């Protein structure tokens, strides 16, 4: 098979490319240049699009012995991921840019171009497993639970999965590093990338502040009493506890969490953990990895990257997914994806629109 290996310059994608080549595929390495103004060097473990990363990817391709190219997807990435990220925060929601990048860039723009250029598939260093079945391909969690990335791949459709390879899904990360070492890949000891690649200093609030400017408003409790002020609703995420900067403590002395964000009247509503609890949610833009589920299903749901699994009952109605939690759930943020699992298998995903709170009083 002719396989395009997306190579970020990190250890995972390098080993993934090496494994594809070793399996006898005709592999070509491609580094995606996603930043308009790449920094020269990595600072710490953040970011993934510096010139140094591009060089690391090229060096790995040389060691593996495969051709290597750089594709400039900066504009596409900016329009589909960065602008979406900013617009979602501006709307009081909490987006997941990695998921958006997989959906719109890696397995859309890159995959389409690869197929047009005579490739059969795209391979990445994501930690997830593809299982072949007579009915088609299934997406499953990786064996290494700490590294599992099936959540950010839950947007892939059967058509995209057909042309995807995740060669690392069956291997724990520590073994991947050891394998990189054994293969003579100099990125073996390179730190993992964290956070959001286009926010190099890791300061999301600062980045959003620059993009959206200051829009001061009030912090209130569920009854509408003003507790404090903020510089912009984009600095908050539902479920957030730290950085609220409310002077007076709650009457019961317990911590307060962000319950709701309303950019229109610039209000951030806070309350207790009990008030945060959610019973149901509605999510739109569903994407199914395999067959579309019918009727009501019992499943497990994951509500954010590296979040825990929660038992739910879900049904699809009018192109919206209605999810009911067996036990009330915390920190359910509109804009995040709800990814549904059947055991280790990903059923599909949808974007959280609205939540229904348990409305329990303390």
């Amino acid at each position, binding site marked *: 098979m002719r396989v395009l290996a997306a190579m970020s310059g990190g250890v995972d994608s390098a080993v993934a490319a090496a494994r594809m080549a070793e399996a006898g595929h005709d592999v*070509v390495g491609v*580094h995606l*240049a996603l930043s308009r103004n*790449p920094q020269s060097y990595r600072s710490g473990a953040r970011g993934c699009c510096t*010139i140094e990363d*591009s060089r690391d990817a*090229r060096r790995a391709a040389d060691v593996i012995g495969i*051709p290597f*190219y*750089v*594709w*400039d*997807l*900066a*504009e*596409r990435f900016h*329009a*589909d991921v960065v602008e979406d990220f900013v617009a979602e925060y501006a709307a009081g929601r909490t987006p997941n840019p990695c998921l958006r990048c997989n959906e*719109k860039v890696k397995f*859309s723009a890159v995959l389409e*171009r690869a197929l*047009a*250029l*005579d490739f059969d598939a795209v391979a990445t260093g994501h930690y997830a497993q593809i299982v072949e079945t007579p009915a088609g391909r299934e997406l499953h969690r990786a064996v290494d639970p700490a590294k599992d990335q099936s959540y950010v791949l839950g947007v892939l459709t059967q058509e995209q999965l057909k042309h995807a390879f995740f060669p690392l899904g069956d291997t724990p990360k520590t073994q991947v590093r050891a394998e990189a070492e054994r293969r003579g890949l100099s990125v073996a000891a390179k730190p993992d990338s964290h956070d959001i690649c286009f926010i190099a200093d890791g300061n999301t609030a600062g980045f959003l502040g620059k993009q959206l400017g200051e829009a001061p408003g009030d912090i209130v409790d569920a009854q509408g009493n003003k507790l404090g002020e903020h510089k912009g609703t984009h600095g908050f995420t539902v479920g957030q506890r730290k950085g609220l900067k409310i002077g007076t403590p709650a009457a019961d002395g317990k911590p307060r969490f962000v319950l709701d964000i309303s950019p229109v009247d610039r209000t951030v509503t806070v309350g207790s953990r009990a008030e945060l609890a959610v019973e149901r949610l509605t999510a739109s833009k569903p994407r199914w990895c395999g067959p579309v589920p019918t009727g009501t299903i019992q499943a497990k749901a994951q509500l954010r990257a590296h979040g825990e699994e929660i038992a739910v009952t879900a049904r699809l109605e009018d192109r919206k997914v209605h999810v009911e939690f067996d036990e009330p759930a915390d920190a359910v943020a509109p804009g995040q994806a709800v990814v549904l699992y059947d055991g280790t298998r990903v059923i599909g995903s949808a974007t959280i629109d609205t939540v229904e709170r348990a409305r329990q009083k303390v």
Partner: protein
Amino acid sequence: MLPAAIEAMASHLGRTGNASSLHGSGRAARRTVEESRETIAEALNAQPSEVVFTSGGTEADNLALKGLWWARLQEDRRRRRILLSGIEHHAVLDPAVWLAQHEGAEIEWLPVDELGRVQPEDVRRAIEQDPDAVSFVTLMMANNEVGTLQPIQEIAALASSYEIPVHTDAVQAVGQVPVDFAGLGVDAMTISGHKVGGPYGIGALVVRKETKLVPIMHGGGQERDVRSGTLDTPATAGFAVAIEHAVKHQDVEARRLIELRDHLVDGITGTVPGAKLSGDPVGRLPANAHLSFKDCEGDSLLLLLDARGIEVSTGSACNAGVAEPSHVLLAMGYDDQRARGSLRFTLGHTSTRADVDAVLEAIGPVVERAMSAGLQNVGRNN
């Protein structure tokens, strides 16, 4: 590298001797260096003392621009205008821009037509706006991307009537077209070892004896006190053998390459709809065929041709390896899309008619496939 140049270089690698030393082995090294200098000078119709060895073309360009800038300014503080074209190599563009950003130089861009040519009349017009304030003119002899040759002799003649020095980067020209330093009338000329089949890591600035340069490398005072540093004796020997060979065979090789190149260009433009030759169809480097294609990315073409064992180049790659639309094509008035859909085929001494026919066979389907892959950043599905 030319086998004879490898042999010459290898035979010196085992010998000790610093060409600046006075003892016996130093003298032997010096003899090699000076004989190499004489050979190179003779190949270019220059005086041996006019050949200043450097680490390569980039250093020679930097020495020419910065050396001329400071030397001219020391004589007359008004000399701040640098005249150059927008199609220069980065080794010329970047020092010029650096001088503008750090030393107060005023860069003036000479107009370039759609074939990549600078007209002498435009140079005259630019100089005449304030001749006393001109530091120097720099213009490459042959463009590395589109292959267009410039009328250096005419431009040098008119600049010299104002006593303004001219530098030319002749890295691409030597061995491809006749290069006569004295006949050209320029003050300084950049050449490079590996471009003529010699070793990497050596080049020279050929600079007239009476032209003053302020050194940018200070130290032991080698190379007329203009370029300090112990000379790489084996590399000078390899460089000399290579340049002598290239110049001696230039005429015959050029005729062979022109025939092959025209076969390639005619074959592509005749069969691929929308394919066009870039640069001057006549006044161009014999080995250069630069073509633009409609509605596809040069990147895609490169990848597809590479997979078929055909090696071509797109514009210039920036340090991240992202193919930027070539500054040369943009200066020639190409729009972004046509610039991105461009490829350079370079022929060499091993290229044969069969190689060209293999390209002609592959190019049609490759362009078709690249067109189906579309244009980058177009067709967003938000």
